[in-house]
Structure formats: structure tokens, C-alpha cells
């Protein structure tokens, strides 16, 4: 038995040596408000993209408010909803589903509807009163929308890395898991051994 155990342990070690720090075939996704849109991107941990996968967006009451499909890049965009929080699901098929929640704050919506509009108009107002106005309020609003959009697009890779980082589990998790398995085996043996010892003692004193 010890030799067999050694061989299986060797096999385990061999397998562990090949472990990559992330698992294949888990679908992950992230979403964030980008200008007047919400940008959604899904990806498998092995880098594949979920193409033409159904995306559903639910409001706080659980009603479907947006329904769509990812493109070839695994991304999907929809217009910013009126209120938050929202829950987005991406079904990559064959039992793979990812979920992502966005709070009202993350969507850039205040507690009450129209909060953002109030702030941005306030900003416009201050800018308009102080100094020379660069352009009319309409152009300024357009400019702001463009900036929001550009910043959002620039943020995509950052958001993606963050989401990957959140999902990535290291080697220590794997070792920890193996430790738990061995620990459970040990615990079982300990309980059994105590029972056997107690029984043996009982037999001795009885004899």
C-alpha cells in the first residue's frame, strides 16, 4: 500500500506541476457604464469569446428590460437604463452562465432619477458663469458625452484586467484545497481510530 500511495502521490504531484493559475471554461463577464451606454464583455478563462450568446438585463424587480446577443468579440452594448440597480446575465450555452450586478451608483445614476443631469447642468452653469464660455451649452453637453465615451473606452482594458484579477486564483488556493481534502480524510480516520481504540479498551477490561 505505501508504494501504491507513493505512486498516486507522484501522479498528483505531476498533475499539480502542470496547473495553470486559472481554470479553463469558466465564463466571466464585466459591465460598466460608458457614456450613455452600458458596455458588457464576456470571456472564458481560457481566452475564448462567447459569440452570439444571449444577454438579458433585469431591473431591480427582476423584469427583463433589455434582451440582446453578444457580437463576435463577446461584447454587447445597451442604452443606460433609467434606474438601477440592474443585473446582467450572459448565457454562453452548455450550462455556462455569468452574472454581473451594477448598482445605481456604478451606472452613474443618483438615488433619484435624473441626478446626473442635475450635476452636469450645474457644472455647465458654473463653467458658463466663470470665465469665457468656450461654446454654447449644447456643444458643451456634446463634448461631455464624447469625453465620457472616450474615457469609458479607454477604461475597457483596465476593467477587464480588474475582473480577471478578481477571478484569478493562485497556486495557494489549489494547495489549500488539497490540504482540506487530506484534512477531511485525516479527520475521518481520527474519529474511526478513536472508536476502535475505545472498543479495544472495552474488550480488554471486559476480559
Amino acid at each position: 500500500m505505501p508504494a501504491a500511495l507513493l505512486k498516486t502521490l507522484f501522479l498528483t504531484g505531476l498533475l499539480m506541476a502542470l496547473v495553470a493559475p486559472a481554470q479553463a471554461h469558466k465564463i466571466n463577464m464585466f459591465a460598466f457604464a460608458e457614456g450613455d451606454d452600458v458596455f458588457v464583455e464576456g470571456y472564458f478563462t481560457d481566452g475564448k469569446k462567447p459569440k452570439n450568446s444571449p444577454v438579458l438585463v433585469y431591473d431591480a424587480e427582476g423584469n427583463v428590460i433589455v434582451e440582446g446577443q453578444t457580437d463576435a468579440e463577446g461584447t454587447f452594448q445597451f442604452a443606460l437604463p433609467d434606474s438601477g440597480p440592474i443585473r446582467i446575465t450572459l448565457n454562453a450555452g452548455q450550462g455556462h452562465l455569468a452574472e454581473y450586478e451594477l448598482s445605481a451608483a456604478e451606472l452613474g445614476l443618483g438615488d433619484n432619477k435624473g441626478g446626473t443631469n442635475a450635476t452636469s447642468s450645474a457644472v455647465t452653469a458654473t463653467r458658463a458663469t466663470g470665465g469665457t464660455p468656450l461654446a454654447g451649452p449644447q456643444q458643451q453637453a456634446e463634448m461631455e458625452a464624447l469625453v465620457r465615451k472616450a474615457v469609458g473606452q479607454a477604461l475597457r482594458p483596465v476593467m477587464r484586467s480588474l475582473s480577471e484579477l478578481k477571478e484569478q486564483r493562485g497556486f495557494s488556493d489549489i494547495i489549500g484545497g488539497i490540504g482540506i481534502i487530506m484534512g477531511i480524510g485525516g479527520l475521518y480516520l481520527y474519529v474511526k481510530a478513536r472508536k476502535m481504540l475505545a472498543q479495544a479498551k472495552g474488550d480488554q477490561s471486559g476480559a
Partner: protein
Amino acid sequence: MHISEGILSTPVWVAGYAGAAALAAVTMRNMDMEEIPKISVITAVFFVASLIKVPLGPASIHLILNGLAGIVLGWRAFPAIMLGIILQAIIFGHGGITVIGINSLMLGGGALVAYMVWQLRHRFDIQRRELIFGALAGAVGTISSGIVLALALVTTGEAFNAIAATVLAAHIPIMFIEAVVVGVSAQFLSRVKPEILAGN
């Protein structure tokens, strides 16, 4: 091959838990002390196998090794795989907490079918039967899990034939790899340490 959380309706995953608990209770009966280290090691192998990426063309796949658990542990493969799945769900978010039952039925059930196929080798007096039946067990372990996956997805309203075809097509490469890995392992173990294999 794990079902994610939030796909199956509540009655389905609750039924999955009930089925897995019943199967675990049956397959854990009269467990011997000497079996525990072997079960622990195979649980660890299964737990880790799903995290190893094998590059295959543009994508990558991972081994399941439930067939291997079946030929080494016999009926005890079920509790081993269930424990592996619980830990994968808790530590890695692989699958999810609500679907532990149904994922155990899927992968553990595949291991039990693999064991049954493995036992058929006694009926054949042929050369290299460990290699052949080990390979068959590896392939069958993957296929039966795929069938359970398709059955579970049918409850979400997908047509069985369509979803079964997609699932099985996606698992054909892994089926061949599992067949080779389990077949070679069975052959190797039967030469160097035959008593480690189940159902001698």
C-alpha cells in the same frame, strides 16, 4: 464540465441535491479505514484535474478524470467527486453552491457508469483488457456526464436532441483524451500495483 449557477430552476437543483445526497449515502456505506487515504488522493487528483488547461488548437480543454476515479475507487468514486466539486465551488467558484448536487450527479454519476463498464472486463478473456476497458471507462465517464448535462439543460426548455448534440460534440476531443489517459493508467496500475484498482 460544470453547470453554472442561475441556469436551472429551483426544483431541478433541489432534486439534484436530493439525488446526490441519496447516492452519497449509498456509496459511502461500510467504508473501511484503509480506503480513506486512497479516496483522499483520488479526490485531490479530481479536484486539481479540472484546473489544468490542456491547449488544443485555438482553445484549451481540461481533463475531468471521473472515469479514473471510477476504476480506482469503484462506488466510492461518488463521495470523492462530490467532495471535489464542493471544494471547486467554494474555492474557485467553478459551478456554484446551488448546483453542487446536480454537478455531483453529473460527474459522480459518470464515474459510477465508468466503474460498471470497467467491471465488464472480467467477462472478456482478451489481451490488454485493462488498457481496453480502462479506455472505455474513460470515454464512458465523459459521455455519461455529457448526457446528464444535456438532461439537466432540457429542464430549461432546450430541446434534448439539439442540446445533447452540442454538448457531446464539444466533448468529443476530451472523450478521446480521457480514454487514452485512463486506459494507459489502468494498464500501468494493473502491472505495477493491481490491488489499487477497483473490482479485482
